[in-house]
C-alpha cells in the first residue's frame, strides 16, 4: 500500500470472509489485483460454515429453478476438479416414498435431463442395495452426482490459495463504517479485534460479500440491497445413517435432505425469514419436524441421538413482504454494481447463491470489478487447483 501510484496494482477490499468472499479473493488475486479481505470473526463463521456440506448436483432445483440447477451441475463438475480430495464422492439419491412423490418422478427425471444432470433411475431393490437403511416402503429412487464436503474446509481452500498468491486475509477485523465521499466509496474503517485498534483501509473498489448482512453493509454506503435473511434449522445426529446424500423426491420442503458428514448425519432444513440475521433462534418445533421428516427417509433417524441443532441464515434476494418462508425465493445469486444501480462509485455487492456455486459467483463478480477498474484479465479459477485448507492459517 506504500508503493507509488501507477506502479501498484489496483487494491480491492472484500468485506466478508464467507465462501463468496474467499472465492472472490482467490479469483481477483489470480487476475493480478491486490486483495485485502476482512472478516469480523473466523473465516466461514457466518452462513458458509453452517450449511449441510452438500455439493449439489442441481437436481434439487431442476424442477422449478432450472437456472440454479444448471449453475449447480456446472460448478459441481469444476469443484471436483479443482478441489481433489475434498469431497466424499458417494453420489446422492432422490427417494420417492409416497404415491404423491411418484407423480413427481417423471417430471423430475425429465427436468434433470433438461438441465444436463446425469440421473440414473433405480428400482426399490437397487436403491436399498446402495443404502440399506432407507425407508423400506420407498417406491423408486434416482441417483445423481451429489457429493459431501466439509462446509468449512472446502471454502478454506480458496482462502488458502488466495493467501499463497499474495492476498491479505484478515479474520477478526470488523468493518465499522465505509469511507464515502461525494458518492464514491474509497475504503473502510475497521476495528482489529486482535489488537483492539481502529484503522482505515483504503481501496479502489470495496466489495460487499457479507451474505445475509449485505443490507446492513450496503446501508453504510447509503444504498439499498434487498436481502431477506432466511434461516433454516439443521440437526446433526450421531452415527452415519447413510453414505450417499439422501434427498426426498418432491418439491423442496422441510427436513428432506440427509447428508452423511464424518460420523454424523445432517438433516436439513426448514425455512423462514427474519429481519436481523445476528441472533438466530432454533425453534423447538422445527427440531421436532426435522426428526419427523428425516425419519420418513431413514427410519433410524427417530432413534438417533442429537449431537447438535443449529440455524443458519441464507442470504436470499427479495424485498420485505415478498416471501414468508423464503422457499419462494430463487437460490441464484446477484451482483450489484452500485455505480449503475445507485450512482455510488467504487462499491459492488455480491449476494445470494450457495456454497456449491461459490466459484461461479466469484467469477462473475470479479468480471464486474475488473471492468470497473479497466483491468483486462481472464478468469483462471476453472483450471487452478486449490491449496490445502490448512494453508489458510499459514504465516
Amino acid at each position, binding site marked *: *500500500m*506504500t508503493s507509488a501510484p501507477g506502479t501498484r496494482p489496483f487494491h480491492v477490499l472484500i468485506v466478508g470472509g464467507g465462501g463468496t468472499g474467499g472465492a472472490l479473493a482467490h479469483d481477483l488475486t489470480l487476475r493480478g489485483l491486490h486483495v485485502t479481505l476482512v472478516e469480523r470473526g473466523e473465516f466461514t463463521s457466518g452462513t458458509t460454515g453452517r450449511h449441510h456440506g452438500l455439493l449439489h448436483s442441481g437436481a434439487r432445483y431442476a424442477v422449478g429453478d432450472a437456472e440454479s440447477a444448471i449453475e449447480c451441475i456446472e460448478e459441481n463438475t469444476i469443484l471436483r476438479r479443482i478441489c481433489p480430495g475434498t469431497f466424499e464422492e458417494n453420489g446422492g439419491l432422490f427417494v420417492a416414498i409416497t404415491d404423491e412423490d411418484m407423480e413427481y418422478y417423471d417430471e423430475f427425471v425429465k427436468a434433470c435431463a433438461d438441465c444436463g444432470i446425469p440421473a440414473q433411475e433405480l428400482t426399490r431393490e437397487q436403491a436399498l442395495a446402495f443404502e440399506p437403511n432407507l425407508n423400506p416402503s420407498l417406491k423408486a429412487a434416482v441417483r445423481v452426482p451429489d457429493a459431501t464436503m466439509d462446509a468449512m474446509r472446502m471454502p478454506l481452500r480458496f482462502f488458502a490459495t488466495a493467501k499463497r498468491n499474495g492476498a491479505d486475509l484478515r479474520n477478526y477485523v470488523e468493518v465499522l463504517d465505509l469511507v464515502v465521499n461525494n458518492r464514491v466509496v474509497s475504503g473502510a474503517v*475497521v476495528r*482489529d479485534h*486482535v*489488537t483492539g*485498534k481502529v*484503522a*482505515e*483501509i483504503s481501496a479502489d473498489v470495496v466489495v460487499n460479500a457479507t451474505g445475509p448482512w449485505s443490507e446492513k453493509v450496503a446501508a453504510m454506503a447509503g444504498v439499498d440491497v434487498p436481502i431477506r435473511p432466511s434461516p433454516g434449522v439443521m440437526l446433526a445426529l450421531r452415527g452415519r445413517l447413510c453414505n450417499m446424500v439422501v434427498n426426498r423426491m418432491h418439491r423442496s420442503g422441510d427436513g428432506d435432505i440427509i447428508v452423511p458428514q464424518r460420523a454424523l448425519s445432517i438433516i436439513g432444513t426448514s425455512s423462514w425469514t427474519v429481519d436481523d440475521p445476528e441472533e438466530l433462534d432454533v425453534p423447538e418445533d422445527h427440531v421436532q419436524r426435522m426428526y419427523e421428516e428425516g425419519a420418513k427417509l431413514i427410519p433410524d433417524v427417530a432413534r438417533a441421538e442429537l449431537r447438535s441443532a443449529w440455524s443458519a441464515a441464507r442470504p436470499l434476494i427479495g424485498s420485505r413482504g415478498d416471501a414468508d418462508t423464503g422457499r419462494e425465493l430463487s437460490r441464484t445469486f446477484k451482483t450489484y454494481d452500485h455505480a449503475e444501480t445507485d450512482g455510488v462509485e467504487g462499491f459492488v455487492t455480491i449476494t445470494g447463491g450457495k456454497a456449491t456455486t461459490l466459484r461461479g459467483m466469484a467469477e462473475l463478480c470479479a468480471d464486474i470489478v475488473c471492468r470497473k477498474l479497466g483491468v483486462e484479465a481472464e478468469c483462471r479459477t476453472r483450471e487452478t487447483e486449490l491449496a490445502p485448507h490448512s494453508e489458510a492459517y499459514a*504465516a
Partner: protein
Amino acid sequence: MSDAIDERRSRGPVQRKGLGPRPVGWLDPRGRTLGHLAFVGNRITGLGLVFYLYLHLAVLSLLIRGGEAWNDFLELATTTVFLLLDVLLLFGLLYHGLNGLRVTLVGTGYVPNRQKALWWAGAFVGTLVLALSAFRILGES
C-alpha cells in the same frame, strides 16, 4: 494498518494448565482422567525414588564413621514411624514399577488400548503386595 499488522504477527501468550511455572501444569486436575492421575503419580514416585537413592547413600556412609553410628541408626530404623516410611517407600517402588510395566506394555504397541484395564490390574496386584508387606514390616516393630 501496517503497525497493527506487525503487532498482530508477534506471538501471543501460551496458556498452560494450572498456575505458575510449567511443571505445575501437571498437577492441575481440572478435567483430567485416570491416565493423567497415573502420569502424575509416576512423576511424583519417580522423584521420591531418586530422593531415596541419595538418602540411602547418605545412610550407608554412616559406616565410615564407625560401628556406633551405624548402631544408632539401626535403633532409629526400627521405630514404627520409620517403618511406616519403609511402607511408603515400598508403595513408591510398587507404583513406579507396576505403572512402568503398564506403560511399557501399552507403549510398545502390543496392547495399545488396554491402559485402563492394566492400571486396575496393577492397582490390584500392588495393593495386595503392599498390604502383605506392610503387615510383615510393621509386625517387626
